[in-house]
């Protein structure tokens, strides 16, 4: 039996419905009774320390047997744990309360979104070390006013994935017009490596003989393919280029082996033509025939004539 079915009156239910539609999770399947849906469904290593990355919850409670009316002074707690069902006590539990005393009776308690820092969730589950793939159990419990009786509950999981891709290999930088065209391949991973889904390319000015102490402003680019054009570089300046791979959870690989290359001044066809003292200046020619032909094109397309 779904908790929402016991809310008196229709206004609140309509408010909840609107809130869900407007929430970032709108369009997703609603959680089944007794379940919690999170967005995202998995965390990466960077989430362990990030002070900005958040996670959003949506849930539907299953009421305990015998509960038919929700007392006005009841309250909800949201817990995180590395143990299934987020046990309340016990020497080996690492349950943490991270969104205490959410009071039922407002839309946010019934499937609208609640957002917290991912870091809070990870810490709450006792996974501060953030050094292994883990499952974080998320539990929502409805208590009576004294907190001694659980009236309803819902649970779900979030995967903490710490595996990073291996460093890209075969990085090749070819010189372009004030740019470098960089390509690479995925490194050969192991069973504990994460799959690469995105890449970061970095380039520093790096004079010959100072490969390890490159200085100057860094140019960067990101892509999900295995090649990238890095524009806006200085012609004639030697650059050191490295590539990083990222997993879907944002786990960063070590840097690739560097490649070194120097952007050039590439002469395109127009520049070559002008260099050879070509006289064309571009723009639309002033000849009346061309204009007439274009007008005729427009006119004839609109005209139909039938032979008798």
């Amino acid at each position, binding site marked *: 039996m779904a908790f929402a079915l016991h809310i008196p009156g229709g206004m609140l239910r309509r408010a909840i419905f609107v809130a869900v539609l407007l929430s970032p999770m709108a369009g997703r399947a609603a959680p089944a009774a007794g379940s919690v849906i999170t967005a995202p469904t998995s965390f990466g290593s960077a989430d362990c320390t990030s002070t900005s990355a958040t996670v959003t919850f949506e849930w539907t409670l299953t009421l305990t047997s015998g509960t038919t009316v929700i007392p006005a002074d009841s309250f909800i707690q949201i817990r995180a744990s590395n143990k299934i069902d987020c046990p309340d006590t016990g020497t080996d539990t690492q349950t943490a309360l991270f969104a205490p005393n959410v009071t039922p009776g407002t839309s946010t308690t019934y499937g609208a979104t609640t957002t917290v820092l991912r870091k809070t969730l990870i810490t709450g589950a006792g996974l501060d070390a953030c050094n292994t793939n883990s499952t974080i159990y998320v539990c929502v419990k409805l208590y009576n006013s004294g907190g001694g009786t659980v009236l309803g509950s819902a649970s779900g999981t979030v995967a903490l994935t710490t595996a990073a891709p291996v460093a890209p290999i075969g990085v090749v930088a070819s*010189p372009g*017009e004030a740019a470098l065209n960089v390509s690479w391949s995925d490194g050969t991973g192991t069973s504990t490596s994460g799959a690469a889904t995105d890449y970061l390319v970095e380039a520093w000015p790096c004079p010959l003989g100072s490969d390890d102490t490159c200085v100057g402003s860094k140019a960067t680019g990101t892509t999900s393919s295995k090649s990238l054009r890095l524009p806006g570089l200085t012609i004639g300046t030697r650059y050191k280029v490295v590539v990083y791979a990222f997993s879907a959870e944002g786990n960063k690989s070590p840097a690739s082996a560097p490649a070194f290359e120097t952007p050039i001044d590439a*002469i395109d066809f127009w520049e070559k033509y002008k260099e*050879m003292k*070509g006289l064309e200046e571009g723009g639309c020619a002033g000849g009346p025939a*061309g204009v007439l*032909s274009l007008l005729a094109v427009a006119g004839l397309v609109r005209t139909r004539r039938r032979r008798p």
Partner: protein
Amino acid sequence: MSHLLSLGAAVLAGVLGLGPARAAAESPISGSFEFRVGTYRPDIDSSAFDAGATLPYQATFAGRPNSFKLHVARALPWRLGGTFELGVGAGWWETNGFAVTAAGAATSERTGFKIVPTQLTATWRFDVLWEELSIPLVPYARASLERYNWWITGPGGKTVKTGATNGYAYGGGLALVLNVVDPMLARELDSDMGVNQTMVTLDVSQSRVDDFGAKKTFDLSDSQLTVSVGLLFVF
């Protein structure tokens, strides 16, 4: 091979007047539509450059494949000792090469030259042979005003220059009426879609696209005769 033999036999039969009588109740003809592809190489390097200089088109695009020039045209007919048509057309052509260094060495940076030719055409099609004698060959002559809208791309695919050049072209060709190959299918095409005749065309033309002799312009005339083949639908 058997298809070619069949086609040849059908054409021969048509030429000898042995083809099936043309359907008496054809739909009225209101125009034509043609797809055409052909050779093209702009004569940009014919402009006056310094003696001994590396010609820019040759330096950039030599040995690089050109796409065929594609034309799609629509025409409206009048009867005038055959069929006289006034039509419009548009097309596409491009070639791509590599930018070079100051020393002339090729780089990995691409540069391209692209043209959208537009044209106003006047065509006289001597289709009396087909209309009156069922001979499935239709010679034709065509003259056109041309406007070539072009742009040049440089490294990174960015457009570095755009422009347009006017001119004219003239030529002619021979069309083979495919109705003789399968008259029943031809009649169905007419009754179902209003296509009276379907023809394969072989077209030869000479273009002069240099803003009518202006000096400060690209010479986009074809450096040789333009030869194209097409498919013409008379509807």
